[in-house]
């Protein structure tokens, strides 16, 4: 498994996202796609766990839609997402799985995340999203689920790095 270098198109997307997103402006948040033979993954980072969790979610939606959800327009709707997890990796899986569930049932693509809590045993965030029908799908379409395979959460004082593989 390798993280994409600056030569890769995915990293260009990350740079673009950082510049556009005021909530992450000035921070070192971002994501890159991970190669996997059958599936695809995301490595994401930020100054703290909530920023890295948000970046991982952005990466997940970018895989499905073929681009940044924040680039898309339409009436926004707010949802409260609350999950629990005994450990950081469990919390990350449950957070992303809940966003997938929201998309699957409500047809909502999450765009912005405002965290009230992000540490085991719970993660809670106000999620703003748009309806999927207001976005173009040029990516792979559906992510079936969030796996535990090669799952990683690394927390340092001013930097959090996460890694997750999705089932396509």
């Amino acid at each position: 498994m390798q993280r994409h270098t600056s030569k890769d198109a995915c990293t260009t997307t990350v740079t673009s996202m950082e510049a556009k997103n005021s909530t992450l402006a000035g921070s070192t948040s971002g994501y890159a796609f991970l190669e996997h033979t059958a599936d695809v993954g995301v490595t994401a980072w930020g100054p703290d766990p909530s920023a890295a969790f948000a970046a991982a979610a952005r990466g997940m939606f970018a895989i499905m839609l073929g681009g940044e959800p924040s680039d898309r327009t339409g009436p926004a709707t707010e949802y409260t997402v609350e999950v629990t997890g005994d450990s950081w990796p469990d919390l990350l899986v449950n957070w992303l799985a809940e966003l997938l569930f929201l998309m699957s049932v409500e047809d909502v693509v999450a765009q912005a995340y405002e965290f009230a809590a992000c540490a085991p045993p719970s993660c809670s965030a106000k999620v703003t999203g748009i309806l999927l029908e207001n976005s173009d799908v040029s990516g792979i379409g559906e992510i079936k689920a969030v796996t535990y395979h090669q799952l990683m959460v690394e927390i340092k004082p001013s930097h959090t790095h996460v890694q997750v593989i999705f089932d396509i």
Partner: protein
Amino acid sequence: MGKNAPQNWRSVLKQRDAVRWELPASYMPGMRVPGMIYADEAMIDAMAGDMAIQQVANMATLPGIVGHALAMPDIHWGYGFPIGGVAAMRVDDGVVSPGGVGFDINCGVRLLRTNLHERAVKGSLPEIVNQLFRDVPTGLGRRGKRRGRPTNVEGALAEGAAWAVENGHGRPEDITAIEAGGCLPNADPAEVSDRARQRGAPQLGTLGSGNHFLEVQAVETIADEKAAHAFGITEPGQIMLSIHTGSRGLGHQVCQEFLGTMQRALAHYGISLPDKQLACAPIKSPEGQAYLGAMAAAANFAFANRQAITERIRRAFQHVLGPPESAIEIGVVYDVAHNIAKLERHRVNGKEMDLCVHRKGATRALPAGDPEVPAKYRAVGQPVLIPGDMGRYSYILVGEAQARRETFASTCHGAGRVLSRGAAKRKLAGVDIAKLLRGKGIVVRANSKAGLAEEASEAYKDVRDVVDVVERSGIARVVARVRPLGVIKG
């Protein structure tokens, strides 16, 4: 992950013959049985540095595993189990692992035969493909859901394909040509959460995306006249259809929830694993029994899903080709699961055992005479459906007795990927896949150009090589080959 993958698997594997490679139990601490990989030399060399064989070793650490941890020739790196992995655990003291089934519970293939010939439909092919694309929802969101009132999925969970037929999606004779009759008897719908039902209800009768597809095909060659005749395959040019999909969001949600349940139960049962995705619980534990009941219910939902799509296909053909209705005959050849865990009885080291056979990207392959083969096929064996890729061909095989003896009656499930999705897109950047296929006489409809590149022929092994290994190992033999005429992708 237990270890890093060696750059040269030949230094680790013991070659038993031209297509069998044993992974010794001494390769990694904790392996309870050796592994066995079915592959030719080129396939083994192509896996240098790849994690798939490492995942075979990880599979072999699971409690209660018997025989070998098996990998079919379409093996490639998955999550937890490799794709193409087969593992059988003793029911008495073994475990069941949702990661050994996969998120798409009972993802599988259904093959339909028609009484139409390529000559007769060639002019209508674009219209047929367009109609199928309209009638069988694909992709994400509302595009990938059925319109109208939400379905009460209770019947689908309990009764599978039979429920679909009773509710107007097909004919009673369809049920006679489905693995397990289209209904796993150990289903326990009460173990399927409301959230899983919420995800699944609008998706019954839909294809999804990723590698799921609906293909209009023509028979290209027939290798085994007797078996082909039994399967209703009559001549080159005969129009066939393949459906590749599974239990949709319902199955994904079941697996996601039970992985969490089993992660939490690992310590209680004293199980340590080399990969968290292998989370498991003893088959006889409350967690194991609940998962098996929910998984079987999700599998039944998948059988009902493919049944509902079958009826949509019939109506689409009728709509395009018109009356008289009786002139168009579309029947089910067979329907196989390739992501499943089933309670089966097999002989291991001369002793009959009750086992839980995990097939993740692997297909059951029963030989002639087996009582579980539908009566109309029992003289020749169970049809085995092996899709290739959208630009080349797919195969119809039949199970052989050797599969009973060494693979728990299992064989491969497809071509197997060789390129990651990103690598496929980079390799095919700027290439118009649909135009390329049109040049070969293949009509394609898809929701996404990027998705097409990721699923292009170049991303997959040549399924002919995979099938060749299967034939040389004696676990299944070729009956016929079909080539794509029309492809619908999510």
